[in-house]
């Protein structure tokens, strides 16, 4: 809703001549001590459980992030099964011994440079993606299609009536993930058959005829939802869809499930996938 309001604000300012402008400025930003970023994923699609450890960098530095090697990473599930992850490449740790199963909780411990970081995450009941539909249209409605070609990606699923559901939708174009954290919760929609619609700019997302668009519906827990919800307002990626100015009076680092002030998220989730081809 905040976005809508901002759009209207911009709309209003376009009605008055000589105003509303955007320019790149140089700001003297402090340099920050590199902070540890831990991304952990346990999913039920059979892929290995994976942890990626990097460090942050200064704002005006190029976005190349130091990989943290030599960490000790252990995952234990609520059934008592445990595994030490192996470093398969710099900063990337994997295991096939503990894999995701719906209903289980996963506990993770990361030790590096004498610091210990813990997190836990639970795979909630799975929501299944029913089907996809793709529609081409101009946006805003009423204009010429070729000026600003938009794909409306419709997707359908049944919200679980007896559960508080949280989801993340990952959109991939020919296997390459589009930026942004698109999330859903059922506070206002519990138990409904959900018809959802994503508005994708062809140009910004580089979508061409013949491409394959994939939607991964991740059923996540509340902690992961809260993480993505708060991460959206600090996402600098162009195609994140969160755009616009920070909606919060004082932006802050996302709410994470890691202890000890680590950045990133540990998410155990289930995945349901559908793919559609971009036609003429």
């Amino acid at each position, binding site marked *: 809703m905040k976005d809508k309001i901002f759009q209207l604000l911009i709309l209003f300012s376009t009605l008055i*001549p000589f105003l509303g402008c955007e320019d790149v400025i140089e700001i003297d930003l*402090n*340099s920050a001590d590199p*902070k540890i*970023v831990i991304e952990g994923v346990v999913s039920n699609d059979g892929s290995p459980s994976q942890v990626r450890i990097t460090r942050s960098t200064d*704002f005006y530095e190029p976005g190349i992030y130091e990989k943290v090697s030599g960490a000790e990473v252990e995952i234990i599930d609520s059934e008592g099964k445990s595994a030490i992850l192996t470093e398969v490449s710099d900063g990337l740790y994997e295991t096939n011994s503990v894999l995701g199963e719906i209903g289980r909780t996963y506990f993770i411990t990361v030790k590096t440079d004498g610091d210990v970081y813990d997190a836990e995450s639970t795979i909630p009941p799975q929501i299944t993606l029913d089907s996809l539909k793709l529609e081409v249209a101009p946006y805003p409605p009423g204009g010429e299609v070729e000026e600003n070609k938009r794909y409306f990606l419709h997707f359908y699923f049944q919200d679980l009536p007896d559960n508080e559901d949280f989801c993340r939708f990952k959109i991939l174009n020919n296997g390459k993930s589009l930026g942004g954290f698109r999330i859903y919760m059922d506070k206002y929609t519990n138990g409904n058959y959900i018809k959802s619609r994503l508005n994708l700019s062809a140009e910004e997302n580089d979508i061409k005829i013949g491409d394959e668009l994939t939607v991964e519906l991740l059923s996540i827990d509340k902690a992961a939802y809260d993480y993505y919800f708060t991460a959206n307002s*600090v996402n600098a990626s162009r195609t994140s869809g969160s755009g616009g100015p920070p909606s919060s009076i004082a932006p802050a680092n996302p709410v994470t499930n890691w202890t000890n002030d680590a950045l990133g998220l540990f998410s155990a989730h289930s995945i349901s996938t559908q793919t559609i081809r971009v036609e003429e």
Partner: protein
Amino acid sequence: MIKNRLLLIVFLLIPISVFSQNSTISGYIIDKESGEDLISANVYILELGTGTTSNEYGFYSITVPKAKYTVRFSYTGYKTKTLEFNLVNSIEEDIELEPSSYEIEEVVIEDKVDDQNVKSTEMGTTQIIPKELQSVPVILGEADILKTMQLLPGISQAGEGNSGFFVRGGNIDQNLILLDEATVYNASHLFGFFSVFNSDAIKNAKMIKGSMPAQYGGRISSVLDIKMKEGNNRHWKFNGGIGLISSRLSIEGPIVKDKGSFLISGRRTYADLFIPLAGDKTLNDSKLYFYDLNLKANYSLSRSDKLFLSGYFGRDLLGYKDEFGFDWGNITGTLRWNHLFSEKLFSNTSFIISDYNYAVSIASGDNDFTITSGIKDFNFKSDFQYFLNSENRLSFGLLGFYHIFLPGEIESEGGNVNSFKVDNKYGLELAAYISHEVDISQRLRLNYGLRYSHYLNLGPGNVFTYDAAGFPTNITPYESGDIISNDGGLEPRIIGTYLLDETSSVKASYARNYQYIHLVSSSTTTTPIDVWLPTTEIVKPEIADQFSLGYFKNFNNNMYETSIEVYYKDMGNQIEYKNGADIYFNELIESQLVFGKGWSYGLEFLFRKNVGDFTGWLSYTLSKTERKFNEINNGNTFPAKQDRTHDVSITAMYKLGKSWTLSANWIYYTGDAVTLPSGKYSVDGNTLNLYTERNGYRLPAYHRLDIGATLLLSKSKTSEMSLTFSVYNAYGRRNAFVIMFRENEDNPVYTEAVRIALFSFVPSITFNFSF
């Protein structure tokens, strides 16, 4: 304890002059042309060197020993009237003052302008009469009380072109804004670019920056008390203006000549009518406008009974086709009864309603629903003023508010979304006060008082308790009429004025204020969807203690006014949202809050020239405002967003010949304290900004120059036509409204800071008329 001691002082002081052989002169002071009551007009008895001022209904009363007196009645912008009274018995005398606008030069030479600012027991207080400010340049040519207020020391604008304001480091919701005594919950149109106050309908506005007398309460930072015009009770009058973006029209006239009058004043913007001209077809079905309607009527039943009925209706409407609609607005209504029990005891009793609500409707794709939310008040108050004698004046009264909070409701017509309602909340806010203004000696004047306020959090409703992590642990249902929790406290107020000589004084004050309803804003400016929260067991009343000290000096026969004030304000039980708070339609909203404290201190300087061809003022504020919350910024103190070290404004108006008035204002302030990233990192292929401290950076300094000119086309005793030209942000400074941080379009490996500036160089023209 404090209460008892204060009451003791009251009773010790009252009898001093009760038993002398006294008589009273009393009546109303009114404008000869329109019959409007004049607020804060001066009454001065030359022989005694003492006097009084008319109250907010134009009533004055002064009791003095029986003798012959020369009494001078004066009011800025009016010809002074001097009358002889032979006081044998009490005299009722209504005084008609004639506007002096035709012979300004004479007035300056002949009469000493009042030096109320030096002598009164008012601190941090400014009166604004819209008529006097018509030539101050403003954005889009709409004269605006709230924006003019922001040019005064200690009051700063909430954002570019915004009518929201911060007073002495307080938040926007800590300002009590009253329109004919009714609370105005959202004083902004179009996201703050306009205020809801149409200058044509406003008689007088008084801003009190914290040293408020005991009659005011309920907000911890300031009171802005706005009075609507009564309407001309002598003859019909039409007023209006046609501008680029809006037009307005007022009609006023007598109901029964000299007994009653009415005023209807309306305003509407029509920017949306120009949308088709913008050439962008996709905007054609947009709706974007607001309107204001002010209504007022009054009638004198007898000499001692007057009835007033006033109302305000305003709404903003935005929309796109049937797909999206968003509208919000205030309604206020006030029924007042002025009654004179005697020539010394004046009373006013009011019934007031105020209502603020918004509605969002969305019908696109597979969604079709409407969201509504708001707040509603029913208010009863009764105020008494007892004009004991020329040295003593007592005010006392009581009031009650019944608040209904509507946190939010979703009504769905099918589709994805279910209908949903967060239960209404109810509360009763009660207060009683007494205050005493006394001239202890020729030099020392005191206004002290005590207010007691109390808040009852009422059922029906479910009350949640939470664990440390904010999860609800227990639900207790309450029935209608149950008292869920209550809070209250004493609010002592005192202001003293010590006259150093005829033209200078030193003043000191202390005030404590309680605030029981809270607006926690999640955005950088006010938005129509901000949610008001009541005081509960978890949300405690906000409390502020303010100390101030000032030196006031007038020069050159009061041609120049100066003042220096310093203040320290301590604010307890301040509220912020947690990071990532779920704000809307959340029945567990209290689990999303964190509580802390704040303080602000500063120095305010004002230099003002009120008379002559060249008028204007210079205002400078040096201040510091900080907040401390355990859960924010690792518990470390951080500057509030509105912490502006330097805040300067210069306003100048110059009369050039008979027909031109030129004006300009220049504003400069230290950039807002903001939270900017110090680094970045990557999560799942996304670049996220890294933050290290709250409000640790500053926006670039804000400054801008506005210029204006008014050309008087014609003027006679009864009619006037003029053109006002203005340019907002004349040198096109790109003041940052917001700074975004994002990847570079061509080379996404790099990130950049992008400044969004809203207004640079906005010209406007308005045609004004009255006949």
